[in-house]
């Protein structure tokens, strides 16, 4: 199995674990360490520990240029493997499922479903 295949499988597994609430994600509001030395914007990140490994996931907004050199804002999702001090060991390569993972993490970490259930009661 190639590293890319292992990475894809890890993203899918993290998604399944998150959706089944078998892994807990914590909010990180201080994201300065993630964006240090760049012009990227990260409002919120999420961290989880599973079998001794730490993962962080976040949406990065960044400025880029189109073919006619017009500047515009774009975004991507980063999933990283980090050490106990939060230092990034490895960026997971591009994978479309990372967006679904981030969405699942936001819903679970924010207890969105429970909040909506409460709101809709009676």
């Amino acid at each position, binding site marked *: 199995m190639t590293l890319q295949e292992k990475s894809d499988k890890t993203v899918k597994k993290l998604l*399944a674990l998150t*959706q089944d*609430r078998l892994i807990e994600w914590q909010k990180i509001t201080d994201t300065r360490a993630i964006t240090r030395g760049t012009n990227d914007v990260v409002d919120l990140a999420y961290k989880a520990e599973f079998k001794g490994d730490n993962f962080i996931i976040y949406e990065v907004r960044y400025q880029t240029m189109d073919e006619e050199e017009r500047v515009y804002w774009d975004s991507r999702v980063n999933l990283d493997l980090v050490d106990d001090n939060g230092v990034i060991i490895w960026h997971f390569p591009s*994978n*479309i499922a990372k967006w*679904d993972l981030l*969405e*699942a993490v936001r819903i679970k970490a924010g207890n969105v*479903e429970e909040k909506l259930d409460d709101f809709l009661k009676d």
Partner: protein
Amino acid sequence: MFSLVAEILSIIGFMVTLWVAISLWQLKRYYTFKGRHPEITRDIRKYSSELSQLLDSNNLDGEVSEVTLRRCQSSLKALRRLIPRHYIKPVKEAEKAISICITDKMTSSRTSIRNIYNKLITVESDLENIKKDEKWRISR
């Protein structure tokens, strides 16, 4: 002697016709795929995202509708006819997973839905790779 040359030339002519026909068929397939690629990619993203959202829910009350699965199957079928041959296998596997889910009435099973989702993600990754190859082909 003359008839032999004529025979050889007609065989060569036939082979050239065959080569032109195959090339034309491949060109037609390539440009149809190129035109349909963004639309099919968008559709498959929509379906996989829908399945993922369903799995985000704590209880799977709102099971995936058979109509959604059949629409997804139809997009995959269209894709299978156009996609380069070495990418066909994951498309077929996704189609098969949907068929099994519908036939066995597993539309509310998390395992079955997750299996379809995972297969769709593989197809999406392949489509993304094809798009990247395409960029390289244009800029060459």
